[in-house]
């Protein structure tokens, strides 16, 4: 484990996590969540859990981002209530 690399990725994980819940636009939140998943995937790979990293990359960063975007596609910018 290289601690500098670990530190950079952990910082990115925290920042993208905070950004994903604070940002107003839902589409941006979905993309940020994908970035968060990708950084988590790198962390798993660094820690040696390659199977988990693979799952995180396919499910977290791949398909779930598509599902989020597909769901956001059916929302409107201003809520009706």
């Amino acid at each position, binding site marked *: 484990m290289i601690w500098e690399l670990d530190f950079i990725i952990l910082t990115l994980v925290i920042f993208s996590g905070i950004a994903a819940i604070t940002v107003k636009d839902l589409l941006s939140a979905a993309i940020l969540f994908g970035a968060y998943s990708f950084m988590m995937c790198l962390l798993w790979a660094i820690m040696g859990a390659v*199977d988990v990293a*693979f*799952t995180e990359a*396919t*499910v977290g960063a*791949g398909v779930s981002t598509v599902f989020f*975007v*597909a*769901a956001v596609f059916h929302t409107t910018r201003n809520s009706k209530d």
Partner: protein
Amino acid sequence: MRVIGLLIVIAFGSLLRYGVFFFPEWGDPASPASLHVSPHYIEEATAETAVPNLVTAVLADYRGYDTMFETTVIFAAGLACFMLLRVLQRQVPECRLYRHIPTGITLRIEKGGKLPTESGSFERIDANWVPHDLIIKTTARFITPFLQIFALYVIAHGHHSPGGGFQGGVILGAAIIMFAISYDLRRSIQRIGEQATAVLGSAGVLIYAGTGVLCMVLGADFLNYSALAGLMGVDPVMARSHSMLIVEIGVGVAVSAVMVWIYYNLSSAGRHDEGL
């Protein structure tokens, strides 16, 4: 209200942080998890199951019961999306858009208007999303077969390298979803229909559970694969290895079909007509 919420979050956050202090160190060989069953898995798994990838051996054999219900959870998620979103009565949309392919002119036909015949010179396009990009379509068409082959490799090679049913199934589903995004939803549904995804999704779970039931029929415990040795004509160790492949294929089939099924329902809000 916000202040109370913040206080609750801080209180529970510090409680969790306090709990973390009692965790064993990362990679500590004296931690309870490393003392009980882990040494057995690490030392004996290759001899007992003939599978070099330890993770697959634990996932599909030692903890096979757990993985079976994970697959069931995925299937239940697909079923939940279907139950919540699917609109079963056919609604005629307000207007339909058609593109005249030779000239590129778009026709807008209101409800009740005469629709163009399916002659091949018109193509139906979505009302709010018009992806007409040659580069995207060509790239997606070019990548899809490689993606599918890679998915099959990941499923079949899960014994020896990272991967397995879940990852391979998701990649296989993602290949179909990519096709649906780069072309349109209707064309994807024409090729892999909703019924096919539902049937394949349940078939995958049935393959997994059926393997377990077969072991029971042959007199062993549920999901004790060594009972299948006589049926396969190999020794019990190889029977466990081969059965893991069968189970992984079941997981892959279920996961890929359910991913596509969820995408169909989510992207078109259950109408299966116009979507992302």
